[in-house]
């Protein structure tokens, strides 16, 4: 019986619950000389995160959001933007928008993006006046008052809207229809920012995603095709006529504004090769077809340009299921350094 008692006691001891973690008081020190990197994570893993990289040490804190809020960011963070002293983080599968104080990262509010108990799946965010505009996969653009942080209006657009940008007092929304694959959408919705209503749909090509505006107010959209027979192309829309004025015959996956130029990034999934080209918006020509040596990356996942130091920050997703890097290059494409961050990095907010 002694053996039985011993075994039972052992089981009681090892069966106990793990200790609870005590919530912490977040640090309210002003953030400086670093960058906040949104790492998307992976679907249904709740491992989206914000990495804080301190430029003076080069060290990344992948628990930045948790240390500020005592909780996790959620599932599949898709966008992070700053506006009016606040940071807005769009979390797609968790269907939330996290609003933080820009100077400290302290949480202000979590906006739940549910509609009668159904997830809206917010995707991207942009701003105009006192409103934030959020594309939602359920076919709407939500208007959020940036003071009350409440949804004040829903504007119906096309299927599964993704990227959006403002030009000429109008909002341009790319309707990808990606959740209807292979019968995807091909349109860009034009929304009047006076009436908050869709005024036109422009056909641009299959599966439109990113939207960017150049310094002259012209709108550029990436139509990603069907990933096989229909190639991914950049399409230009004249924001005065709202007509397609040009379709460019080169591979394009993402657009990042760099002065009068665009950085055109493209990752070829079939050949596992990355490319970054420079497109001049005045001449409408590719001025450098291979700015950065693609051997510097494993998997190019996006590009961001920082005007204050003229550096190019490239996101390397590595194998998608392991943590990634932000790789820094000069504006002429010379490699400078790398920062190890979280899983699938995709967007940055810089701090001087």
């Amino acid at each position, binding site marked *: 019986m002694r053996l*039985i008692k011993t*075994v039972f006691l052992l*089981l*009681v001891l*090892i*069966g*106990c*619950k*793990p200790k609870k*973690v005590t*919530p*912490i008081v977040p640090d309210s020190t002003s953030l400086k000389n670093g960058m906040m990197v949104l790492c998307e994570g*992976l679907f*249904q*893993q*709740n491992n989206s*995160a914000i990495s804080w990289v301190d430029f003076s040490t080069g060290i990344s804190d*992948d628990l930045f959001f*948790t240390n500020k*809020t*005592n*909780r*996790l960011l*959620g*599932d599949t963070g898709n966008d992070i933007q700053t506006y009016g002293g606040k940071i807005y983080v769009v*979390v797609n*599968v*968790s*269907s*939330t928008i996290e609003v933080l104080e820009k100077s400290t990262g302290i949480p202000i509010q*979590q906006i*739940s993006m*549910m509609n009668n*108990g*159904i*997830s809206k*799946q917010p995707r991207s965010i942009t701003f105009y006046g006192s409103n934030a505009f959020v594309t939602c*996969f359920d*076919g709407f653009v939500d208007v959020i008052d940036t003071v009350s942080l409440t949804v004040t209006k829903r504007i119906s657009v096309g*299927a*599964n809207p993704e990227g959006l940008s403002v030009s000429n007092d109008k909002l341009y929304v790319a309707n990808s*229809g990606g*959740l*209807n*694959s*292979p*019968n995807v959408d091909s349109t860009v919705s034009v929304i009047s920012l006076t009436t908050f209503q869709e005024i036109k749909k422009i056909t641009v090509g299959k599966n439109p995603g990113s939207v960017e505006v150049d310094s002259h107010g012209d709108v550029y959209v990436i139509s*990603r095709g069907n*990933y096989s027979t229909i190639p991914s192309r950049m399409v230009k829309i004249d924001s005065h006529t709202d007509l397609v004025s040009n379709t460019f015959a080169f591979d394009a996956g993402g657009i990042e504004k760099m002065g009068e130029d665009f950085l055109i990034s493209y990752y070829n*999934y*079939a050949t596992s090769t990355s490319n970054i080209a420079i497109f001049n918006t005045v001449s409408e020509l590719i001025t450098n077809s291979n700015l950065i040596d693609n051997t510097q990356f494993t998997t190019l996942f996006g590009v961001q340009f920082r005007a204050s130091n003229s550096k190019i920050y490239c996101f390397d*997703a590595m*194998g*998608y*299921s*392991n*943590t990634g890097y932000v790789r820094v290059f000069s504006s002429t494409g010379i490699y400078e350094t790398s920062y190890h961050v*979280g*899983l*699938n990095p995709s967007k940055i907010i810089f701090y001087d």
Partner: protein
Amino acid sequence: MNLSLLAFSFNLTFVCMLGYGQDTLKTLPEVEVSAFEINRIKTLDLTSQTYSKEQILLNQPEDIGAVIQKFSGTSMRNYGGLGGMKTVSVRGVGSQHSTFLIDGFSLVNTQTGQINLGQIQTDNVESISLSVGGKNGFLLPASSYINGSVISINTFENNFSIETFKLKYSSRIGSFGEIDNYLSMKYSKSNLFISVFGKYRQAKGNYDYTLQNGNILYQGVRGNNDLVDWYSGATAGFKLKNEAKIKINYKTNGANQGLPGSVVLYNTTANQRLSTESHSLNLDLSHQCKSIYYRLFGTLNHDWLHYTDPFFLNNSGGISSVYTNNSYQMGLSFQQLIRNNVSLYGGIESRYSDLKFSSINSALPKRIHSFGLIGLNLHREKWKTEIQLSSQQIMEENNMGERAENRFKINPFLSFEKIEFGKWKWKFKAWYRNSFRMPSFNELYYNNIGNVKLKPEEAHQFSIGFSTTPLNTEMKVNFLVNVFANRIQNQILAIPTKNLFVWSMQNIGFVNTFGYESRLEINKLIGKNWYSEATFNYTYQYSVDVSDSKSPTYLNQVAYVPKHTGNIDFTLKRKDIGIHLSTTISSLRYSLTENIIANQINGFTLLDASFFTKIKLAKKQSFRIQFSVKNIFNTSYSYMRYFVMPGRNYLITLNYAIN
């Protein structure tokens, strides 16, 4: 079916080439032709582990997966909830390398390539065994000797009985709205038996859970986790004048269940549902012809699956997809004693499978998978050697597009065993097996995910082990250790190939596994009336990614394979009353193959306790009642990231039996 006949003939030729049809016929040693029943072993078998119906009753598992995870060398992927998805990996080799047999018939699912253990219940199970490295059973289908491991289940309804009438009834009432009722009856005469059986089960599945969200402990209730499932069928068996045995069995089963999915933080909506229905007809003839035992068998199987997601954000207002998967099997197995110390076994088998999908423009794959097997057993007084060669031919068709390449492969198996030497009844065994698994229809053809260029995933397995029975007086002790080394080549993994939302299957992985498993059994009589039994299982698996030495995951433990797993079971009985304690122990595992803290899933120790008593009501009638508390310490745990498991729960089981 011309392709099938061609393949069948080819494999028959292959078997004949390797020596089938020896002319020296001698009498076989005594072999149970009803040998799908495996009695509990007196000393530990280095090839297979077995649980009897008595042990299953003590543990009151919710399904067969809960029994299998008690075998050493296994690691479970459990998505939680009654009827929820459960698969098992044996010795670090993926779940699709395992064959499942029920009453000597293979369970086949060419759509997914794996069997959901959460939908196989245990009420009618007489025994279940897991075998790696060697023949485990008699006249089984050729395909079952070829894969990485075999899990074999024998049921009450499929065997001839001495008693004229047998009845089994069980009823369970448990937490989270679980109600089960099972009834089976068998009528036997000298040369025949007929059995009918059925079960109905329902559960709400709305269990409380806690999970750690950063520094906050979140509490929730599992939603959309309800289940209704059922099965029924009938079996008839006949003995002919020439002692040939014929069995025919029909079984149907179905389920309607919510799919709760993983817990998504801040968005707990879940609306997906799954309905399934299956029908199977099995025919079995076994006979002894001089010194050759042979068995002919055939199976017709029809699976129907309906998946819905009413709130998927597409233009159709949701997803409603229907899949129909048919498979037909036929085969011949034989065993023959050539000389007193040499026996030959083998078989041929052919399977036809197809898959239809309700969506237009979807692939319509068909497959004919044929097997040929020949094996030789050489016996001496204290040692055995087994040599086996198998052939597999796979032919594919797809009426709606590109098809996978046809395949033909030959695989070897070798083993050497020294049996029961010395006072402590030592056994020693070493073996090597090379096997492969064909990609499933989903992996090859499913929408954007499928990739018809996939090669088969190959497995090399090597094992060496010993067992001993050092004490065998009033206390009996059995001890076993196996050390194994495995390598998976061309592992099939999903990676993004078009964008981050479009993942596709690729042959990109190589995995090396080194491990060992040990088992200790102690049985002891305490005085005249008390009996105690304890079993300890421990498995170590160092299963690492070796795909690319430059990758950050090189030599990292692969996802969802914990390094340390084990269990301890303890039973104390006094006549017909007793208690049973059962633990399940797992070290931490990783949700992705990068061994960082962010990917860790905590290890856990679970303790279940039961009290049971058996009452004899009248002659040949018995009544048994068991009260069980599962997860007695209300431990918060999960096998898969954010697929939370239930806390403390209760179960009352009643069993009534005639004979």
